[in-house]
């Protein structure tokens, strides 16, 4: 029986799935099981009927993390099966060490706010990139020091272009 460990924020849950028939599953979360009629539609939306209750689930995935949109609310849940979990060890998601800030999209560097040596907190704006007629703030992913700034105001950059490094 496939077993999963789920992480949502600081909560951890155990889950199990049993396929019962075409489209029908028994899913239990922390031992509480529910019958789930689940269908994946061509528009990429998952439709679930959980003990009579209907949910349309919009989702995307990065690695083992699922970004879910249900009734207009966002949920982020990581789901790992036991095999993956064993290989991963603690499974902590903390960012540590040298972090390269890259351009997430093509655009033009409007302002560079960070200088080498600056002390920054996670979330501090390092520079501003203009794309799609909008100004977008690129922020430090961690608390630390700026060790490199390669971005220059006015420069046009492609996705993945290194803009700064925080350590």
């Amino acid at each position, binding site marked *: 029986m*496939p077993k*999963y460990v*789920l992480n*949502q924020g600081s909560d951890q*849950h155990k*889950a199990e*799935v049993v396929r019962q028939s*075409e*489209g029908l*599953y028994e*899913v239990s*979360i922390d031992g509480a099981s*529910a019958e*789930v009629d*689940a*269908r*994946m539609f*061509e*528009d*990429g*939306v*998952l439709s*679930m009927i*959980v003990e009579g*209750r209907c*949910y349309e*689930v*919009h*989702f*995307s*995935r*990065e690695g*083992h993390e*699922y970004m*879910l*949109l*249900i*009734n*207009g*609310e*966002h*949920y982020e*849940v*990581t*789901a*790992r*099966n036991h095999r993956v979990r064993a290989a991963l060890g603690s499974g902590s998601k903390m960012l540590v060490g040298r972090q390269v800030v890259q351009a*997430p*999209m*093509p*655009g033009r560097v409007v302002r560079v706010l960070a200088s080498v040596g600056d002390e920054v907190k996670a979330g501090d704006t390092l520079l501003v990139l203009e*794309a*799609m*007629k*909008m*100004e*977008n*703030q690129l*922020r430090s992913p961690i608390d630390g020091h700026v060790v490199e700034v390669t971005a220059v105001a006015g420069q046009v950059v492609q996705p993945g272009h290194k803009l700064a490094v925080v350590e």
Partner: protein
Amino acid sequence: MFKKILVANRGEITVRIIRACREMDIPVVVVYSDADRTALHVRYADEAYCIGPAPSVESYLVAERIIEVAKRSGAEAIHPGYGFLSENYRFARMCADEGLVFIGPSPEAMESMGDKVSARDHMEAAGVPLVPGTPPLRTVEEARRLVGELGYPIMLKPSAGGGGKGMRVVTSEEGLDDAFTSAQSEARSSFGDDTIYAERYVSKPRHVEIQVLADTHGNTVHLFERECSIQRRHQKVIEEAPSPFISEATRLAMGEAAVQAARSVGYAGAGTVEFLVDDQERFYFLEMNTRLQVEHSVTELITGVDLVKMQLLVAYGETLPFTQDDLRIAGAAVECRIYAEDPDRDFMPSPGKITALRAPGGPGIRDDIGVYEGYEVPLYYDPLLSKLSAWGRDRPEAIGRMRRALSEYVIEGIRTNIPFHQRVLRHPDFLAGDFDTKFIDERFLATKRTSSCPDSQPALIAATLLAYWRDEESARGSTSSEGADTMSSWRVAARQGALRRLG
């Protein structure tokens, strides 16, 4: 009516204009950049011509090339939409010189309103209210006298400089002396100039604008107001009509002021007079937009008037088919701008391919879209995908319909701000009509979202099933190595029905 027109724009507004023309049996010519061959406005047009590379300075902003296409294709008039060349009076003049009708006001009216100082002078002469102020205040005594005449609260401002430096809000005469002295000294040290003047302090400012419509036969009407105070970083995101805030008397006075403003520059066509309204319902002229607005649909919904058709009528020289007395507000309407941006990541633009799209419908819902399923949202232009509007017999019904429609809207493959709209539309202050232009940035986004998470259990179940299917899929070897197992390829698999086999 015109035998053929050209629309010098792209995206949803071009689709909007094509629709009006199609309904009037007017063939439409569009132009497009290299990035836009597959854009919806090209698919919907009767004729389409490429005018240059993706960057708009090399395509949509090249006036000469657009005029050349208009002449070559036999278009008699050019509709500029909004943005791009729509408020460029030189372009309007070029059109006239080349014998083409510019669908908008005269170049002179555009020029008068385009310059802020000239616009303020015109408004002052026409008796349209501006934020009242004093001449420079040389002494404390003079300040006390002139500010007393102006009335409190006031804002002291240095004549030089800007950026908030040296500015002081003063709510009553008691605080004036100290504030004046310190403002003077800060201004002196910051700008080397201690000239200070006072302006009425607009507290809890609202952005309320009046739609006007004028023909070339001297008829000018207004189509009531739009409330546009829901802004993020000075960008309107949700608009509604009528304003839940102003009284009938204020509505009337603002409408008359807007008509006066339009008349004062000999305005023809559709235009918008923007006002700042304070918490006492005093209103002050901000600027006039001499073009169609993004948010024109809410006005159309409460008046039944098709503003684009009216623009065409007026440009052709016809008389407006109604007078002010024929116009009434029916019900209420709200519009949400659907942007390709990620509300969970600081509203970062989210270009890419729309892998699935299902627009909402049903009673009271209007969707003005510029994209389609399979479309690759380009990087070069505004991230506005669609404008979703809802009409109701009253404001609560319009908001209820909007929420319902947002919950139906499926846009997959890119992120959109739909969840942001849903949060705003559930906020008690929004529902109570209690907000100003600072609401989103200072109150709404500043407060951390308390995740009530009513659907946490289904989220856990969904994640479990998605992980389970993925494992099943890799067990069958139906996908390649982990490295290539990106979300998008997985999505494609889902689309091909592979997952339904697993289901």
